[in-house]
């Protein structure tokens, strides 16, 4: 395949960026999207240019590191797929592909396609855990948990913290991400003890960091590579109201 690429290049956080046009040729449809960028980068390096900086690590759709906004969609056009799991057979020969970083105020661009997502870590730090310490816990089978609840908790816990939900949202809301963590623990008996403080603290931190409000456009759910359900947002809202009342 031959492809035209329009890629966002930005030297650093404080400099202005712009789109730069590139071409790649003879790409096998079995190549992954990131391998296609590897090929481009090899050519750039061979010509003495500066390779395109982008985040990636596992290339298996699980670490949440990759983060490209491709043709208007975070992680590209294929549903339930991270950038690293996207393959070139999903594109047409001769197509022009536009590649941008996540664009959201709480995720500043650091270089090219690399953004700073440490705001997500800060939200988790506000309470996205159960405050047990190592040792002194009961036997793992001491508290049975209904299979449906364990399965729903696992559905929510599948979030990879990639930030596509924020990038997809016109308000840059982090509700899907936060609600996934809140829901996971709300569904488990171990998580109930701190449930009220957890939801209040995490939501407060999210607001403080400049993430926007949720106006129910559901763009986040549609773009989430792990198919995290917006029912988690509803569950979190119930928790939040409960926490405020009590």
């Amino acid at each position, binding site marked *: 395949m031959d492809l035209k690429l329009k890629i966002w290049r930005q030297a650093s956080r404080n400099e202005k960026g712009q789109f730069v046009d590139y071409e790649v040729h003879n790409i096998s449809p079995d190549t992954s999207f990131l391998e296609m960028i590897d090929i481009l980068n090899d050519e750039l390096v*061979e010509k003495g240019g500066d390779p395109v900086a982008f985040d990636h690590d596992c290339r298996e759709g699980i670490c949440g590191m990759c983060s490209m906004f491709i043709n208007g969609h975070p992680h590209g056009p294929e549903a339930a797929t991270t950038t690293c799991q996207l393959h070139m057979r999903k594109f047409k020969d001769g197509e022009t592909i536009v590649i941008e970083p996540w664009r959201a105020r709480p995720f500043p661009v650091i270089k090219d396609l690399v953004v700073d997502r440490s705001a997500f870590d800060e939200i988790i730090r506000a309470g996205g*855990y159960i405050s047990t310490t190592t040792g002194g816990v009961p036997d793992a*089978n001491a508290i049975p948990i209904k299979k449906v609840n364990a399965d729903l908790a696992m559905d929510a816990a599948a979030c990879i913290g990639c930030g596509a939900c924020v990038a997809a949202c016109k308000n840059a809301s982090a509700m899907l991400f936060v609600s996934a963590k809140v829901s996971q623990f709300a569904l488990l008996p171990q998580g109930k003890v701190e449930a009220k403080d957890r939801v209040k603290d995490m939501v407060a931190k999210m607001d403080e960091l400049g993430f926007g409000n949720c106006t129910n456009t559901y763009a986040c759910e549609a773009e989430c590579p792990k198919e995290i359900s917006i029912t988690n947002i509803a569950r979190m809202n119930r928790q939040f109201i409960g926490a405020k009342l009590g």
Partner: protein
Amino acid sequence: MTKINSKIPEGPIAEKWTRYKEHQKLVNPANKRKIEIIVVGTGLAGGAAAASLGEMGFSVKVFCIQDSPRRAHSIAAQGGINAAKNYPNDGDTIYRLFYDTVKGGDYRARESNTYRLAEVSNNIIDQCVAQGVPFAREYSGYLANRSFGGALVSRTFYARGQTGQQLLLGAYGALSKEIKRGSVELFTRREMLDLVVMKDGRARGIIVRNLFTGELERYSAHAVLLATGGYGNVYFLSTNAMTSNGSAAWRAYKRGAYFANPCYVQIHPTCIPVHGEYQSKLTLMSESLRNDGRIWVPKKKEDAERIRKKEIRPRDIAEEDRDYYLERRYPAFGNLAPRDVSSRAAKERCDAGYGVGPTGLAVFLDLKDAIVRLGKDVIKARYGNLFDMYQRIVDDDPYETPMMIYPAIHYTMGGLWVDYELQSNIPGLFVGGEANFSDHGANRLGASAIMQGLSDGYFVLPYTMQNYLADQIAVGTIPTDSPEFDDTEKDVRARIDKLMAVNGKETVDYFHKKLGHVMWDHVGMARNKAGLEEGIKMIQEVRKEFWSNVRVPGNPNGINIELEKALRVSDFLELGELMARDALHREESAGGHFREEYQTPDGEAMRNDKNFMYVAAWEYPGDDKEPILNKEELNYEFIEVKTRNYKTA
């Protein structure tokens, strides 16, 4: 040769760890805050250790390459984690888990460490459930288990195909809690490039490169823990994450730490086969699929050839024309034979001309019988995400046609040498997780790596490091402007400048791929004397070419992804040679190390216990000198050493 002291406590095996804990030294709680610890790595081992040490009150600094601790390579572990809970009541015990691990490791692991691992395995499951890890459960509400290779009991706990993710998020939660409390300070996008060892021989700090600014930074502490993962990426193609590297361990080696058993590498039998030259990594299909899947190739060469040419499809091959070679060769364990055995059996069939797929380097993993027996829904619930991943990569529907798999580099049993306390021979340098030479001997069983990472991190290092730190309060804060810090930073800077100055023509990946090919062909699944000798020469040549013709563009100030890769590959080019040397010196076949000269007539590995029942701990004597071999003899007091047998139970 130095005498190696592994500091194994006296007493019966089941009492050693308890006795150790009863007699270890403790730090006065009021003093803990004044004692500083550096933890490099936020995978299961580093994340769990940093959180636990923080909870105990120590001042911890934790470092990782990624933008968040949650993204360490451990996140990718799929299949599960072992523990001797015996919830299914199928006869499991701590001793049996210990025994299986030592046997699986082909009697090349240290007994006392492996027993301790089995002993604390149950605590790990308790801990993770308390953290809210959503393990799979039965309708009763109790925890579910499944089987993994090399065991006849069902002792593996799992969270769909994302066990590593869930366990790591548990550790990340614990770590986040401590960061918020102020006991742990987090440094992301930092890569350790050297270890600082003081004149008195103690490890006291690290030099890191800030991957955003490019600046070199100095950090000091009373003790340093490396939990930096394995070095499988020396082969270029592996199932490891792209930034997984051997540099932290290699730099420690060059500062005097022993590197143990570097040739013990695990090749995983069930990975998606290589498709093309631009492939950047290999994807694992969890071994858990072997619970319900059957592995086969055609019995007739003609059939194999017609499948390769796509003239016929796998389902056109009649049942009696299929060779379920694992079931045939290993009737007792069948498709659940351990990884080294299964990988070699696949290679044997493909080399003999029975392989499938476009390259002939693939075998079938077929879930058809299980789909018929259990229904598509059950299979989907068990392996849905794996099937989706396979389909996305290969563009083939595994519900309809058998998957194609081939062995790939997956895990490194070798690593920095540590004693019973997980301390290296450099006082104050501790090593945990895949980075140490580990409890797995010459081969690791499935679902035991993350068990070991969490065992080291939650339950072993917090005790043993405290034992070391008990008398360190007198030392006071350690300044970072000492000559040792100055010199080490100077060395790092010189290395970076040298790389930038080469200004050659080829990219870093060009050399990495070249090295990877040599390693796979000569230090891979089957090794022999001549091949290893040639391999060593070839590695030296690639290294020479690298230093005269690599191109690292841009400058070292700021993000420079090519420089990051170049630093890692320059270390792989040295480590690869040590692996080959170790493989050459070990004139036996053991676990993942298979020497063609040492096999039985029917192709099974032949150990040489008389001459090689030891850990090879290599010592760095300076560049241009041959590495020095130190031996830690292995004594099996509590297990009878046998030939591994997976043919009969």
